[in-house]
């Protein structure tokens, strides 16, 4: 028996279903503006660049570069110690998107600002959701 997963999980609020359905298939989709072509992370009702509400969940590359991170020794209840929380700047342009997530399967001593990272998904045991993580590309 593995430990139950007790960290906070997303509520899957109305309108986010396509994101979580794709995540369950280990695919990253992000709203892309049909008016100006910009990507928008996190999802907002309108595009940050042109305010158009015509946005479509679109497959993203899932690659990016490591902006910064922290190896956390003192985490909230449910988090194994230590864990790594990081910011990864995705490759998509022109508006850049910075994604927050945990780094997995990557030795801590290998972490470097600017290193290539890729998005991976973890199926959460006994829960109906898959969460994105990052690992060295």
């Amino acid at each position: 028996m593995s430990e139950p997963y007790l960290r906070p999980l997303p509520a899957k609020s109305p309108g986010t279903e396509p994101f979580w359905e794709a995540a369950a298939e280990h695919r990253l989709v992000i709203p892309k503006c049909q008016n100006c072509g910009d990507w928008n992370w996190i999802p907002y009702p309108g595009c940050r660049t042109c305010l158009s509400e015509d946005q479509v969940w679109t497959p993203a590359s899932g690659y990016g570069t490591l902006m910064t991170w922290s190896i956390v020794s003192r985490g909230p209840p449910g988090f194994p110690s230590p864990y790594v929380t990081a910011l990864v700047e995705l490759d998509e342009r022109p508006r850049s998107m910075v994604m927050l997530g945990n780094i997995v399967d990557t030795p801590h001593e290998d972490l470097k600002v600017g290193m290539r990272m890729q998005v991976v998904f973890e199926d959460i045991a006994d829960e109906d959701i898959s969460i994105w993580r990052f690992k060295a590309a």
Partner: protein
Amino acid sequence: MAFPSRKAAVVGVYLTEQGRGLPRTAWSLELEAIKGALDDAGLRPDQVDGLIPMAYVTPLNLHMAWTEQLGGKPITYLDVGSGAGAVAKAAAAIDAGLCKVCVIYFGNANNGNGPGAQKRHDKAPRVDDWDYMVHGAYMSVWYAMWTRAYMHQFNVRQEDLAEYSVIARYHATLNPASIMGKRGEITVDDVMNSRPIADPLHLLECPLDNDGGYAIVVAAEDIARDCKKKPIWVLGGAEATYTDSYRTITSPWISNEGAAVRRVGEMAFGNSGVTHDDIDVAGLYDCFPVTVARDLEELGFCKLGEGADYIKAGHLRLGGKMPSNTDGGLLSHSHNGNPSGMHTIEVVKQLRGECGERQVPDAKIGLTLAQGWAVHGLAGVAIMAAD
């Protein structure tokens, strides 16, 4: 239209006891703070007609409850904000005739920001889809990531940033009300050898996480002149935000143009007519050492990437060029949940000459910066003068 300089003044300030696990409610701490600050000013609760809670949820419910608690007289100026920005907005509202006596307040009891305050669940709790808590981020983790990005971008040593922790603790030793002052001074080595929290940050680089309340009263010129203590005039100020609350950040994270703090600094120096060299004493938001370095850069006291050098040169220490956070700040005095008004209170006390052993001689003009929420995401500045 110009900012109404010297048309309103801070006339009352009050800090309740600050400490961990106070056997109180937030509501009772707030009431004590509001009554205390009004008493400090020599004003009555029924004179209050403006209210600015340091709160971001259900603010209208708060205003309505307080209207009744303070006697039922209608409150005519309802706002929310960050400490120093609230002082500036209160002054502008008073000049516009929207209110005469505005109270800015906050209280916190048994509701910490840190991981120790979070409940243990027997089932994974569900939160907003894009909430940072899903990824184990909390305040110290955000600022740890910011510290690493800053050190990398500007080739700054962590030991140089840690000098701020040393200065804050020294100031706390001169402040009997501070939580950490009685533990005595610390060195950079002490900081670097303290328990790791969120790498690169150690315990002594992280703020306290305690209970406490405070209140600030801003009043119109005619009322201020008749108050118990000398008025501390509001010369200028501003408030700004530029990104959502810890859900996204922009790239580059630290840019030449700056963001909220840069903007409010430019506005406040502009609308107060004060220059950087005029500032005798400052209260700079200091939830982590890197925050102070960035405060100094964004406010224009030094160039981008030179904040740590400014700290290391001792300019913020009592006796330095611009003594700052003379109460010990958020690292060594008190961090009571939303401490964005704490710096304003200390600067007011300095400008009144009430700081005893830690008094900055002849302090006439003070600057106070509140920020936070998404790492420099929400910022407010107030510039104040003793006469």
